[in-house]
């Protein structure tokens, strides 16, 4: 990073902050040298998020294969894409029985790692009238992908995807997930590209 200008350094830091806000833990990347490579999930390849893969079961290899406790791969909600729906298929088990409020009675996440809270102008009488924010609890999430595959288009908007959390990844030379991933979705990226 010593070769960076002050302007470039600030730009890199700002981008890192934005990604960190998205849940990427990317501030750690800013401390890494340009030219170094890091692992990341390519959403266009990941079976849990890529388009045209309707009706498949969630792949949980990121959970079962990663050497890091729980997994260095976690679900991330990119809020700019999120529809803030009343009934989010990534939060609710939408085929469970409907309760008295008209909502599915079961949650989807087996670790209860998503928080749902109304935002904006709230109608306390009718939950269907409200917008909701869905916040992923990084401590609970193990990257199983169940929420990501339900958020995938066309059922959802594709805002929830799996990402390698750089603050958790130990950056193995041979990523154990990539060894097993059937879609070759774990890719090594230069730090600069990962920040972009």
């Amino acid at each position, binding site marked *: 990073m010593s070769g960076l200008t002050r302007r470039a350094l600030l730009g890199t830091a700002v981008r890192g902050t934005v990604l960190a806000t998205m849940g990427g833990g990317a501030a750690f990347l800013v401390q890494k040298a340009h030219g170094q490579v890091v692992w990341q999930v390519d959403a266009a390849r990941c079976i849990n998020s890529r388009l*045209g893969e309707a009706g498949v079961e969630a792949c949980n290899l990121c959970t079962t294969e990663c050497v890091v406790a729980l997994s260095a791969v976690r679900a991330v909600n990119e809020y700019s894409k999120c*529809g803030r729906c*009343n009934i989010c298929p990534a939060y609710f088990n*939408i085929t*469970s029985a409907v309760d008295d409020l008209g909502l*599915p009675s079961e949650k989807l996440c087996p670790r209860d790692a998503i928080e749902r809270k109304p935002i904006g102008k*709230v109608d306390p009488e*009718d939950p269907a009238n409200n917008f909701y924010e869905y916040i992923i609890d990084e401590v609970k999430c193990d990257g199983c992908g169940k929420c990501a595959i339900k958020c995938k288009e*066309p059922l959802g908007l594709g805002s929830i995807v799996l990402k390698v959390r750089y603050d958790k990844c130990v950056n193995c030379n041979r990523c154990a997930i990539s060894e097993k991933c059937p879609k070759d979705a774990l890719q090594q990226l230069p730090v600069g590209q990962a920040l972009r």
Partner: protein
Amino acid sequence: MQYRQVQMIGGKFHSAVRGLATDSRGWLYAAGDSRIQVFDPAGALQRQWTTPRPPHSVAVAGDGSVYVGQEARIDIFDASGKPVRAWTNLGILGPVTALGFVGNSVLAADAADRAIRRFDLTGRFLNHIGKNNPVNGFLIPNGVLDFAVDAHGVIHAANPGKHRVERYSPAGDLLGHIGKFDGNDPAGFTGCCNPTNLAVSDRIYVTEKAVPRAKAYDFSGKLLAVIASSVFDPNVKNMSIAAAPRGRVYVVDTVKLAILAFEPVAP
């Protein structure tokens, strides 16, 4: 009540089919790519013309003129496709994803501001419909706001985030709604946000995404029929739907870029 597929119009579109409408003769108007295509009831292409921008919606007025909704503009053509006038300086339109008529006014759905705009025939703005009504207005995560007008001048609008079809007066009063979420019962609307599109004639027709379905309801909200489901590509969304005489229903498959026609089977 059951429906059967009677026609498929395919191979006519390159990148998108976004809007459908029918006229009083039952001819079909399809807005897609950057043009309008007109098909007779046998599915034969009768005429077509280009539009200034990729069209999102189309509607045919009582006098036969054709209104085409695009990004921030509405273009009006005569029945032959000759441009008559364009409303380009309205200042209050985003993507116009649905068009309709009630009395001497034109209705345009603005999917950016999540409201239906009502204009007089000169393009003068009259009032909003459904904006923030009753709380937060139309919730349209799919980016499309669709509505249709029944024979009594009541506006039926899809509110997919609320899993409802809402009824409005031309003045903008919310009159009521049908529908509710249900992930199992086909009478309900499933997923995050359905129905996405609708049409109205003697009943209410809707389409849903994931699982894709076209369905018919009566005006009280009773499910009359699942018109079709498995014939659609599983990745479709925002399937425009139009009603024609004798109960025929046209539905767009947005992945196959085809229009499928269905008719009720005689009991």
